[in-house]
């Protein structure tokens, strides 16, 4: 498979929260606004790309019996780096994301990519894979966040867009709203992908 292919598969084929339904904890918890979703996505992308690169470089050195332990140490180190950097240079975002930054360590997307891809492929392909999955995750979170923000607080990227008497549907920015929004998105994505499959089948026959 070519490098572009490794990159683009993360954007649709294995789009983490909507197609694989992985990494749901941050997906549900931090998408109260587009900005928070985007920040979380970018932090995850950074960790994913760095850990993919390091895991693929060390894949021949790490004995397979202790590989998970080694991966977790590598991932945890990058997460702490992100946390410190964010505190130093993006404090408001750090305050908004809170506990979910350290929790990137246990995000199954990252360990999943390290185990399923970076542990078996070369560094360049691993970076492409990490970037693709990370950007797919970032876009998903930002779109979900924008949707919830628009309906739940009537704003887009913090700017008010509705008429003055608009009463925001605050249910959408609360925890139950996250499940409803995710369900709607999953339904839409499933519909689109089944239509695409149909077309592909018809084209073949």
């Amino acid at each position, binding site marked *: 498979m070519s490098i572009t292919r490794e990159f683009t598969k993360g954007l649709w084929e294995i789009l983490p929260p909507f197609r694989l339904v992985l990494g749901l904890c941050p997906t549900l918890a931090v998408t109260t606004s587009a900005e928070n979703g985007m920040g979380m996505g970018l932090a995850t992308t950074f960790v994913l790309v760095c850990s993919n690169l390091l895991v693929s470089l060390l894949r021949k050195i790490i*004995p397979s019996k202790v590989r998970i332990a080694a991966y977790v*140490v590598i991932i*945890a180190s990058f997460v702490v780096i992100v946390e*410190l950097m964010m505190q130093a240079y993006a404090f408001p975002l750090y305050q908004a994301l809170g506990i979910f930054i350290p929790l990137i360590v246990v995000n199954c997307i990252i360990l999943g990519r390290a185990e399923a891809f970076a542990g078996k492929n070369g560094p360049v392909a691993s970076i492409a894979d990490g970037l693709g999955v990370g950007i797919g995750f970032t876009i998903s979170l930002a779109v979900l966040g924008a949707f919830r923000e628009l309906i739940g607080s009537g704003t887009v990227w913090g700017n008010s867009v509705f008429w003055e008497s608009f009463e925001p549907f605050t249910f959408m920015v609360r925890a139950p709203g996250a499940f409803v929004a995710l369900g709607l998105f999953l339904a839409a994505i499933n519909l689109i992908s089944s239509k695409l499959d149909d077309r592909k089948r018809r084209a073949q026959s």
Partner: protein
Amino acid sequence: MRDIIKMLVVLTVICTASGFSLALVHDVTREPIEYSRLKFVKEPAVKAVLSGYQNDPIKDRLSIPVGTDKKGKPVKLIVFPAKKDGKTFAVAFESSSAGYHGDVGVMLGVDLNSKKLTGLSIVSHTETPGLGARIIEPNFTDSFKGKPMDKELGVGDINALSGATVSTKGVVAAVNKAQATLDKYRDKMVQ
């Protein structure tokens, strides 16, 4: 046997490398983290009590050692100076005193020339909502503006809150405590 040794060595090396790189990042980010913590947590209070300065009070902050706590650790008073043309004309610092329920923390700004309060804002409190918690209202905090810092402040000098006498007294006590601090460390604050 060789397998086990290899595992041990690889894991140890990875963990050591991780430890070293984290220590490095921690060292590099320590200063900016302290700065942004103060910037986003304290700056709103500092802005409320000081005005007309041209510098960044957070960046120019001074730490003055003011003794030790019960465990023998040094306690530091953080002073935010307001400068105009490179000269400190006012300072902001925190003080606290017991209110009705727990400590009331206040940030106050003092004009060093006229020795008068330029403003006061409540930074932390756990007073009763609806009663003592009214100490955060501008109606109350604004009445401290322009009060002299060289003689003791009484409850009668300010717009005391009815129904929240103990909380009011707590804030006044914090101001009086700050007067003592100011007298004692004034020279160090002007540096």
